[in-house]
């Protein structure tokens, strides 16, 4: 996938149309439908592959990746607090966004590796799920300590039964149970059309990203710098972890991408409910307006080069 891959061009189209204030918008229900299709497709594919793998081999990767999810926001927090001079709840909330993941970025990375014919570890979709949660917990604790005011039961319901987790895990289980033969009739929609669905999704994401740019102007250069430099740091951490876990080049690249991506769906919703004093515009504008476009346009090819560097190409 060169930078001129059509799905990236669709993203650029969305960005440009948004910056020029075009009236173009996908209807919210269609955007919602596209994310559902992407989540199921990623889950199904992971589940089919997962069936071929001994379960015990997953234990070490799952726990190490979870640990990474706890640690990344702990690194981001002091940088935001002391260098960025953000208020405590804001620093904690932004840190939580960067410890968590973006499924959209993951989907583009999947398409990118597929176009280059590079395979990656089949359990990666599981890692998306694993990384979604720890950062939220760290963010809440950083913002307000272990407070009794936090309604943990309600929060865990909201997070664990959110659309993302349910569809990814559900898709994986269905793929796992049904196997490749069983899923075959579904392939035309979920697998053959994957890139077309992704193209439409990215068109809308371009429009949304462009709409965040005006609020970024208000918050200044530090946030823009953070939105680019912190993902680069996280990508190196993710890549090194992948190397230590003995992953393939594709796997290292995917883990670097996951580490580098920032959440814009699950974490904003959770933070709004549990850390209401944090300004939601800050974190969403840097995650959607800076990091997401950076990862799509520059980051993903860069993370493959990083993986090549760490592992040697093709392996």
């Amino acid at each position, binding site marked *: 996938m060169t930078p001129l891959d059509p799905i990236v061009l669709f993203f650029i189209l969305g960005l440009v149309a948004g910056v020029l204030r075009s009236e173009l918008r996908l209807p919210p229900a269609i955007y919602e439908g596209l994310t559902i299709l992407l989540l199921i497709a990623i889950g199904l594919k992971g589940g089919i592959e997962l069936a071929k793998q001994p379960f015990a081999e997953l234990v070490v990767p799952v726990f190490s990746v979870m640990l990474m999810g706890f640690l990344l926001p702990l690194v981001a927090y002091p940088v935001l607090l002391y260098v960025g001079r953000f208020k405590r709840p804001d620093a904690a909330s932004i840190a939580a966004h960067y410890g968590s993941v973006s499924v959209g970025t993951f989907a583009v990375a999947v398409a990118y590796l597929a176009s280059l014919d590079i395979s990656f570890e089949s359990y990666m979709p599981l890692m998306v799920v694993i990384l979604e949660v720890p950062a939220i917990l760290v963010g809440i604790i950083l913002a307000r300590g272990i407070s009794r005011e936090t309604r943990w039961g*309600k929060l865990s319901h*909201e997070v664990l039964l959110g659309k993302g987790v349910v569809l990814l895990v559900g898709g994986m289980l269905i793929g796992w149970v049904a196997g490749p033969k069983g899923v075959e009739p579904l392939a035309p929609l979920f697998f053959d059309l994957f890139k077309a669905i992704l193209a439409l999704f990215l068109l809308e994401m371009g429009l949304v990203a462009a*709409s965040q740019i005006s609020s970024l102007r208000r918050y200044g250069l530090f946030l823009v710098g953070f939105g680019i430099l912190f993902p680069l740091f996280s990508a190196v951490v993710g890549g090194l972890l992948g190397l230590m876990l003995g992953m393939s080049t594709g796997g290292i690249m995917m883990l670097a991408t996951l580490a580098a991506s920032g959440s814009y769906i699950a974490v904003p*919703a959770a933070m709004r*409910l549990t850390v*209401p*004093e944090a300004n939601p515009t800050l974190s*969403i504008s840097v995650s959607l307006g800076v990091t997401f476009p950076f990862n799509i346009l520059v980051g993903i090819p860069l993370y493959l080069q990083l993986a090549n560097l760490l592992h040697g190409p093709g392996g």
Partner: protein
Amino acid sequence: MAPEDDTAMSIDTRKLVTIITESALEHSLADDFERLGAHGYTITNARGKGHRGVRDADWSTSSNIRVEVVCDAAVADAIVGYLREHYYANYAMILFMCDVDVVRPEKF
């Protein structure tokens, strides 16, 4: 109008509480209303502009809901007090109230 309709239909006054706030609060508010004694509520999506800026429903964090609750005065007071204490400081929220005539008061 037939005489039996007159006896069946009693018109009564209740409070209509309308709240416009962030859609992130939908589930918490639903729980709160139930606990405070409201028998029902209606939620619709909303867009608009207030002192926290334009809320255009562009993205989930900038979408609004409009919640309407019809209840008696005591429950309305409880709702107003609770929302003021728990949400006013940190969330975009406005609330207003008016009297409404209802035909089946036992529903509210």
